[in-house]
């Protein structure tokens, strides 16, 4: 099966987008999820609902508002232009921002769940054994919630990989910049270039299956250690 340079470009772009988004998401979502899991503040419900919004909004709504916000006339886009940067619509940075918003609940939800499930005891114990809060995060929370982090990371990566509507609206299908695999496959089907669509789709299917199998068997091995 033959892949064109455009296909390779889209694959590379997609991996770049997904990895960057996942990393950013874990950085953003971890403290947020921790706060949500531990706080007894009333504002929790509001914040949690806001975080979960992208989950319930169709990508077209999200894409629509992000386009308005990040574009040259939007609050963020125009501010950036004033500061001498270019606006974010139809750019790689733009779809990174969109992906982070779009997949945020997919990172926050599993992390929050696993922080809650862990309960306070492990951290209390570790503190009593002299571990400071950063130490506790890395020696207790991270490994104990490894399942949660794995799920959060896979879901973030995957949800970004499967992102289509938002990028369709905000990305503009620019090769090398915003034409990710999901858009390219759509494009191939429109061009009735079924061979290319099949090749890429089957490639993604196989790759996806292999990655998922690895993740799950790793998770399983981990689960066995813990049980």
């Amino acid at each position, binding site marked *: 099966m033959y892949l064109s340079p455009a296909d390779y470009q889209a694959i590379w772009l997609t991996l770049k987008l997904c990895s960057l988004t996942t990393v950013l998401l874990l950085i953003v979502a971890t403290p947020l999820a921790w706060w949500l899991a531990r706080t007894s503040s009333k504002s929790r419900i509001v914040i949690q609902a806001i975080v979960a919004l992208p989950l319930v909004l169709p990508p077209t709504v999200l894409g629509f508002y992000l386009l308005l916000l990040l574009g040259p006339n939007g609050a963020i886009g125009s501010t950036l232009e004033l500061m001498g940067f270019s606006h974010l619509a139809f750019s790689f940075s733009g779809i990174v921002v969109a992906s982070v918003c779009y997949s945020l609940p997919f990172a926050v939800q599993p992390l929050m769940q696993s922080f809650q499930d862990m309960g306070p005891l492990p951290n209390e*114990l570790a*503190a009593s054994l002299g571990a400071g809060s950063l130490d506790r995060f890395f020696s207790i929370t991270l490994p104990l919630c490894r399942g949660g982090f794995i799920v959060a990371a896979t879901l973030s990566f995957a949800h970004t990989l499967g992102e289509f509507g938002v990028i369709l609206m905000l990305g503009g299908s620019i090769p090398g910049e915003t034409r990710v695999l999901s858009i390219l496959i759509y494009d191939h089907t429109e061009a009735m270039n079924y061979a290319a669509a099949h090749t890429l789709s089957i490639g993604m299917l196989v790759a996806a299956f292999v990655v998922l199998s690895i993740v799950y068997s790793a998770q399983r091995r981990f689960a066995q250690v813990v049980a």
Partner: protein
Amino acid sequence: MITLQLQLVRQHFDLNINTTLPTTGITAIVGRSGCGKTSLLRAIAGLEPNCQGLIQFNNQSWLTGTVALPVEKRRIGMVFQQAFLLPHLSTEQNLLYGFNRTRKQQRTLTPELIIAMLDLKPLLGLKQHQLSGGQRQRLALGRALLTSPQLLLLDEPFAGLDQQSKAEILPFLHRISQQTKIPMLLVSHQLDDIVQLADHIVLLQQGQLVTQGPLQQQLSLQAFSAFGAMSVLHCHTATSNDDTLLTLQLGKQQLMLPYQYFNGACRLRVQAKDVAISLEPLVNSSVNNQLQATVCGFTSASHPAESIVQLQVEGQPLQALVTNRSTERLRLKADMTVYVQIKAVAIY
């Protein structure tokens, strides 16, 4: 000295402790289930964020008002009520978790020592799910000790242990306490263990302190009669020409006990029910240990047909549980000189 002025308010429960506890030896905390023992330990450890008041450990301020020193800065060792092992760590990593986080110059206990003394070697190769409750408890105890803490908080550390394991660990804890001088707060329901280990005892009731003080004095208080009246006698080993029996010097009198391994100061726990009184020394009896004592008074026992005879032996308090019938038959009165037969003691 630990100075405590604590308030911890919960929905159906208030903890209110105003007292000063010693930072030498082992202080036992006793009281009925739900009286707040675990809560007190957690408050001292810094694990109760809602706790208000004052905690002063020697010259360190752990809590003033609502400003609290973080748990990890208090250098405490804690064994939680339900031995909790970190599930992602191996048995060995669990044991060493705190040790690795203790500064080299602060380490006073080594893993080798702790492993040997708590018999942890056979456990280190095992997976956590292969450990039984008692084994976990031993590990948790070792882990807390290995932080070389300045205060050890033990929340029912023997709850899941069989007698034999317990019998192996208790003297070890005692030795740790004596050798390292780490003060310990020990919650336990077993007065046996407490009498064996504690120098000091604190009694809680519904979140309030009822009484606290040195063990020997506290034991004669009515408040502790629910645990069964007993006394503690301090004595020291004397030279003897029988190498199977240990001769103990109690003031001017001597006791002989079937122990070999003691040397120096030791304490005898004598349950009041194990003390018999006679007006003359007994002959032709298997009882070896008879001491001359003076009757000081009588207090009521939990059963109306019995009373506790308060005695003095070489200046130390000793309680004897006898039936009122016997008291009448022997015509026991204050200041009478009598002979006490001590059938059973525990020596620590």
